[in-house]
């Protein structure tokens, strides 16, 4: 692994199927230890870009790189560094969990004691150790997701690409999956995760990319994107009395706009997302002898950002 080199890179990738432009000039990078959330409506081009990165498809133009190796020209080197969990994955009949993982460990050339260790680690990490000998046919959806994640990480890859990993999981399993993903990132792995559950992505991703109709509309950290799309916060101040006075006091201040008064509650927009300045704003209100009962700021959720950016158009 080369320091300072992004672990995942898409460089101006184009991919079309007939007249449908599935991916159009998409570029982004993910560093080691980062979780990148890939968001977009159905048919936006997420899975196509992920399949290109996973060496399952070829771009019409551009290149995808994993740890500096081209997915187009060096797929064998890429595969050794990559764990891919597809949205729709299959399992073999007549096999139990340990046989399934053992087969894939062998497929990655892990032999002898190393394979034993890899199996132990994976089973423990995914919580499958209690049902290691259970037939795959009898597994629940959540357990199958865990098994597939285990398969993707059996060879300890530096990069993990997870396509809708939380799809169909119950709330508890989702929380556990989120913890697993954060744990993998803490180990220094680069993760690319697509999901429809945006609140969860917002919590675990260092950065996100929003794609629609094959085009990457925006990418960056969640905070950066929120700031870029709406460079102010909504502030709510509840006083013991003197709502009108506060609104008059605020009216002359810079960065303040849209003041609304409702008895003792004052709402306004403050053109700043810096938490330090938000604290200073509270200090200034109290210093001006207003009796503050409640002070809260409302930041926008990832859902709001997603809805604002995307049009919902499908192709």
């Amino acid at each position, binding site marked *: 692994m080369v320091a300072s080199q992004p672990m995942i890179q898409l460089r101006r990738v184009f991919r079309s199927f007939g007249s449908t432009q599935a991916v159009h000039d998409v570029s982004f990078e993910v560093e080691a230890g980062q979780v990148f959330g890939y968001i977009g409506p159905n048919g936006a081009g997420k899975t196509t870009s992920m399949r290109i990165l996973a*060496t399952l498809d070829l771009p019409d133009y551009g290149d995808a790189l994993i740890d500096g190796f081209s997915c187009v020209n060096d797929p064998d080197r890429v595969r050794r560094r990559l764990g891919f969990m597809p949205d729709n994955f299959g399992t073999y009949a*007549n096999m139990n969990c340990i046989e399934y993982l053992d087969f894939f460990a062998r497929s*990655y050339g892990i032999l002898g004691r190393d394979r034993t260790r890899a199996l132990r680690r994976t089973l423990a990490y995914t919580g499958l150790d209690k049902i290691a*000998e259970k037939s795959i046919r009898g597994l629940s959806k959540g357990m199958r997701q865990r098994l597939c994640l285990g398969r993707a990480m059996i060879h300890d890859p530096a990069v993990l690409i997870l396509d809708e990993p939380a799809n169909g999981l119950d709330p508890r399993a989702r929380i556990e999956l989120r913890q697993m993903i954060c744990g993998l990132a803490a180990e220094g792995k680069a993760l690319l995760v697509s999901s429809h559950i945006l609140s969860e992505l917002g919590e675990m991703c260092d950065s996100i990319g929003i794609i629609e109709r094959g085009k990457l509309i925006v990418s960056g950290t969640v905070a950066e994107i929120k700031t870029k799309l709406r460079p102010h916060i909504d502030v709510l101040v509840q006083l013991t009395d003197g709502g009108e006075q506060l609104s008059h006091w605020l009216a002359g201040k810079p960065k303040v706009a849209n003041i609304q008064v409702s008895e003792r509650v004052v709402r306004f927009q403050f053109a700043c997302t810096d938490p330090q300045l938000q604290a200073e704003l509270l200090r200034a209100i109290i210093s001006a002898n207003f009796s503050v009962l409640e002070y809260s700021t409302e930041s926008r959720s990832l859902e709001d950002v997603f809805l604002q950016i995307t049009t919902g158009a499908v192709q």
Partner: protein
Amino acid sequence: MSDGFQHRMIDEPQRGWERLWLWAGEHVNPIVIKEVRQSLKSKQFTISFGLTLVAAVGWTLVAISMMVPRIFYMPAGVPLLAGYFCILAAPLMVIIPLVAFLSLTAESEDSTFELLSISALSARQIVYGKMASACVQILLYLSALAPSIVLTYLLRGVGLSSILLLLGWTVLLSIAETALGMLLGAIARTRMLQVIAAVVLLGGLFWGMGMWLSFIINFGLASMPVPGWSEFLISAGLASVLAAIVSIALRAAAAAIDFPSENHSTPLRRRILALLGLICFWTIVMILMVQEMVVAQVMLSLVSIPMLVIGTLMTGERGIISPRAQRSLPKTFVGRVFLTWFYPGAGLGYVFIVGSFAAFVATIAVLEITFAGEFSNRNGRNSNALLVGYVLLCYLAFYLGINRLLMMLVPRQQPSRMVGAVAMMAANLLLSHLAPLFLVYYANDYREFDYDWHQAFNIIWTVREILDNNSVDLGASMVIITLCAIGVFGLNLLLCTRDVMLIRVGLPPRVREEELAKQPTPAPIIDPFVDA
């Protein structure tokens, strides 16, 4: 973690053979382990294996009870063995090839194929692993029938060499059918194609089994109780050609399922050349054995058909030498001139096929010049092998060349280019054969007519005229065919210059860096006279 699982992972072998067994288990292709594990657990195997055993035991009891008391003083091995071959043929020549086909199609149907593709396993390992698993099943069925087959030898009437030869051929045919089944399974990627392929394969397998069993019963056992050296020689020839075809089928199956940027053309073309070399060798052996140049005519005609089919598929290639393939291009100019034809691309494939067939024709020509006089004097007739070879070469160069030029008009990204190439060739052949026939028929007021230069592109009629020694009408046709073939070949060769001029590209920096990291670092040189 369950106890069984812990036990399995902690157990360390103590004895030497156990360690050897473990080592072999570690290094065997993982696909073989998976496939054997799955197939031995499957109901299909349990039922078919059980039925085979029951049928063998049942046939033994029925046949022996029917032959009592003759069995005590008359040879009774042949009818019993014929029955065992019938029992063995069902799993070997139908079930195992069909299961191999279904095993590949099920991988894509169950969405497990993608998981295999992104593992470190190569496409070749996947295909060869499945083939090896089929061979394990063949061995299991053989071992189940082995005691019964030994019994037939003890009952007399059939020689050990006959049993071994026919058994060997059954196994070889089973392997060949399995390889073809896997090729079909690899090519048929859509649901509709899979259904069509399954029907075609099943029909073919039953037909093959019927043909083989009728051969065994009518000729193999009845009229060939003790095969001589000529039978073994013919068997060796056919077996080597069949083995080469199996090798091509397996490599082609691997190519069909592999990542597109991989260079599969070179290994495939090497195998095709090896097959042609084998056929050439056995043709020479056969000519020398039977002392007839007619063998050469037959072999040239037979070989030209698969060459036309393979060449047609090659003209459907996308014609791109990927940067990955460019890394292994020949370094020198001479190397490029002789070896570039092994690299991917429709034009290069066309030249490769025409060149290979030309080499085959040239070999036959040398043989004809050397032996024709002697053989014709001995048998009292002349051979037209050289002329047949020359005409077939011209046709191959012309039709494949035209197909390649037409395929250049089809966009490179167009999927199913190979299917398109086959359709285009079929249309070319139909048009060039039927159009002159109808035109001349119309011009002759719908009366019968003889061969003339208008039928120059009619392969079958022209070759028949050559074989009939009707040299009077052939002159003009030969000139037309030769000029057209040279023209089309020259144009295609000219269009190939871009591919031939491509030079080897170096490894990307990241790959070079990794390769360097793999090499051991040299120990630092320490000066003994200087303190560290």
